[in-house]
């Protein structure tokens, strides 16, 4: 993929929602903003991670806050470019590339808007290969790349820069600022060179999102199985097919936590799958035994349409297919597991790989 046009946005948003593993919110607003930006500024050039010059100045940009707030207080597109410019000014460099830090409903489209506005190419890759809830949870953290200096910008014109002692502190301070800014802010962070991006990024994420979105669409058009198309594309495995029979939600320390129970149908008849989620799906258990956990991807799709389902949208009666797919291998390093393994999220489990238990 060398350019991104408005025609690919629906596929990009749908594919990103698949990799978003239940988190990332409703992509509608992000898609509208990106469509408008591409209409005004033209298509965005896409650069593969391998083609980045070593000394490129890559600035990732993302939305931080509550997806539920974003559907009401619509972000302003200018804010997105300003976040990048604020960081560029602070670090005293001229950005050459924009990048995506997370794959998920909204954060896959925010960098498209920045790239279109600033007339910069967009890196075909991201910092996670999926979605996670906190800003230190990215592969660049494992490579020793600092989240800060980072900029944080609201729609009112407030701008801030944090320069913190660790990426965890960046998360903590930025979270507080985001809340005061009205619970949605645009951040630009993890400024890095082309060489660093090549080392720490998951390559090809944007192309993968578009390909996933198109695979779902193509399967539906040709009356093939869209769920199988996603499994194939991700090299994953179908864990369970069934119907949601229970969804329990609770809120603790700012996360939408909960469990969903999926009663097996067809080939899964007689088995019960339980999903444990905190914004994203983190653990899948069948008949009481964990069969897949974070950092691998646990994805819930509508069994019929193949449409990805966010944790907020799960409800009784939904016919769903649950699949697991391998995360980037670096997430399985000891440091990766410390950062995003099941124990970080409070589940007393060793990580279980998507393709491990059969």
């Amino acid at each position, binding site marked *: 993929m060398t350019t991104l046009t408005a025609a690919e946005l629906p596929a990009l948003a749908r594919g990103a929602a698949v990799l978003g593993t239940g988190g990332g919110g409703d992509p509608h607003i992000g898609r509208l903003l990106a469509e408008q930006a591409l209409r005004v500024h033209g298509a965005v050039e896409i650069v593969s991670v391998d083609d980045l010059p070593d000394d490129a100045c890559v600035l990732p940009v993302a939305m931080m806050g509550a997806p*539920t707030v974003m559907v009401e*207080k*619509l972000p302003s597109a200018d804010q997105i470019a300003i976040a990048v410019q604020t960081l560029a000014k602070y670090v005293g460099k001229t950005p050459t590339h924009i990048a995506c830090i997370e794959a998920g409903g909204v954060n896959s489209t925010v960098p498209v808007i920045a790239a279109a506005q600033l007339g910069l190419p967009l890196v075909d890759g991201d910092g996670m290969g999926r979605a996670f809830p906190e800003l230190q949870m990215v592969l660049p953290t494992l490579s020793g790349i600092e989240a800060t200096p980072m900029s944080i910008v609201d*729609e009112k014109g407030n701008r801030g820069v944090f320069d913190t002692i660790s990426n965890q502190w960046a998360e903590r301070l930025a979270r507080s600022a985001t809340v005061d800014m009205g619970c949605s802010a645009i951040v630009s962070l993890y400024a890095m060179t082309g060489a660093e991006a090549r080392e720490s990024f998951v390559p090809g994420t944007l192309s993968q999102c578009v390909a996933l979105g198109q695979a779902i669409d193509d399967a539906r058009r040709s009356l093939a199985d869209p769920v199988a198309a996603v499994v194939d594309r991700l090299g994953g495995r179908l864990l369970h097919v069934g119907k949601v029979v229970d969804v329990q939600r*609770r*809120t603790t320390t700012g996360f939408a936590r909960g469990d969903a129970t999926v009663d097996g149908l067809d080939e899964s008849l007689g088995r019960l799958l339980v999903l444990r989620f905190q914004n994203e799906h983190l653990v899948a258990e069948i008949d009481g035994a964990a069969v897949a956990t974070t950092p691998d991807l646990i994805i819930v799709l509508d069994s019929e349409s193949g449409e990805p389902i966010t944790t907020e949208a799960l409800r009784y009666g939904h016919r769903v297919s649950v699949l697991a797919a391998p995360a980037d291998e670096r997430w399985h390093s000891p440091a990766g597991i410390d950062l995003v393994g099941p124990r970080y999220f409070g589940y007393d489990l060793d990580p279980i790989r998507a393709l491990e238990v059969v």
Partner: protein
Amino acid sequence: MRIGIDVGGTNTDAVLLDGTTVLAANKSATSEDVTAGIIDTLDRLQAERAFDPAQVQAVMIGTTHFINALVEARRLAPTAALRLGLPATASLPPLVDWPSRLVEAVKGRSYLAHGGHEFDGRHIAELDEDELRRHAGDMVAHGVRSVAISSVFSPVSNEFELRAAEILRSELGDDVAISLSHEIGRIGLLERENATIINAALRELAASIVDGLAGAVAGHGIAAPLYLSQNDGTLMDVDFARRYPVATFASGPTNSMRGAALLSGLDTCAVVDVGGTTSDVGVLTHGFPREATTEVDVAGVRTNFRMPDVLSIGIGGGSLVAEDNDLVTVGPRSVGYRLTEEALVFGGTTLTATDIAVAAGWASVGSVDAVADLDPTLVKAALARVAADIADAVERMRTSPDPLPVVAVGGGSILLPDDLPGSLAVHRPDHFAVANAIGAAIAQVGGEVDRVYAIDPGRRDAVVDEARQEAIDRAIAAGADPAQVRIVDFDEVPIPYLPGNATRIRCKAVGDLRLGQS
């Protein structure tokens, strides 16, 4: 006594009810002239069962006029959309996601101004009254006759929408209608705003239709109050209907489901309306339809109306029956309205679901001889297919594991057995042809709250009580009998990432209409 009338695009149904007893019912073609149509309908009721107009306590009307006007893009007023939210939201101004054809039909003009709230009630920016006056001047210059005002997080605080309305009214005069988004929709700015703009565009039509309806009822000597039914199965009075025509959009399916439930004596059930091509399945809980949680597209505009959640599947009386090896399929292809020419029992050559029902002895329409030679195994398999698919659709719509009785209505309900797989008992009420009008006549009055609350530790119960009380107060203000009001729907969803246990609470109260002495 009360009268219920459902004015559909094709037919107008009317019933005269005493309590829940049907005294008279009729069905006629909808006429172009609203007033004349209602007068005619009332005359027919009078002819079927003479009644003293003074004995009528209330008249309830469900109408599709407004949604049809939008879909057909006719009789819409020149409309301005004013949003308070700057400096936020500027990138996606009002009308941004509307089809251009409809923007032209409403001569849509879009304005952005400062204002709006944060999720916790803080101001995004203060209102700039001079800015609003400048916008008002531009509206006058462009012949705007109706204005929709939306403000960011107005479901949390309505103060800016109210103040902006005051300013616009003083600039534009009383002849320009003003619609406020916090009174129309819920959280989700674009969707709520879209619904408000649609409402604004329908205000002039609403005035003329409501006058026509009121005139017809009064002309018949009925002095009782007139109500219109809303999407959620509750009523609004005539003044409210003038201001909120958009609230009638989905009243048709809602009235049909509620009417069917009343006729069957069940208040928690699935209603399966089997037509010629599709079956529509909805679920009633305590007499009210479950609402769709997803956005609803109306005439190409994304909205978040309170619409009943209805699942349509491709099975109806005209569905084609096919046999492929051992697999028997029914639908989704259908002969539709050509059923009476193409089905075997009507002398045609196409095997339809209706032929199967006749062959099985479940229905007696057309010629039984025409299907006498059908293979009994095929008939059995086709009926089993229909039962399994309908049961599956009902199953999907269930929100709890408790068994759910099924109320079957519509001409195609002859296809259903007395028990569906999953031990779902099937009920078939009388008078279902006028279920819509009955649904209108039995409608109650409701009040709703939908807001994000910051719940301090230990305060959850107090906040919940506050929300419930507000819903009840709103229902009473809308005309509900205070002794009858109860909470029928309560939903609490924590919002991720927000501090202070921010929780979105939706709560609905309804009660019987307070009727005057007769």
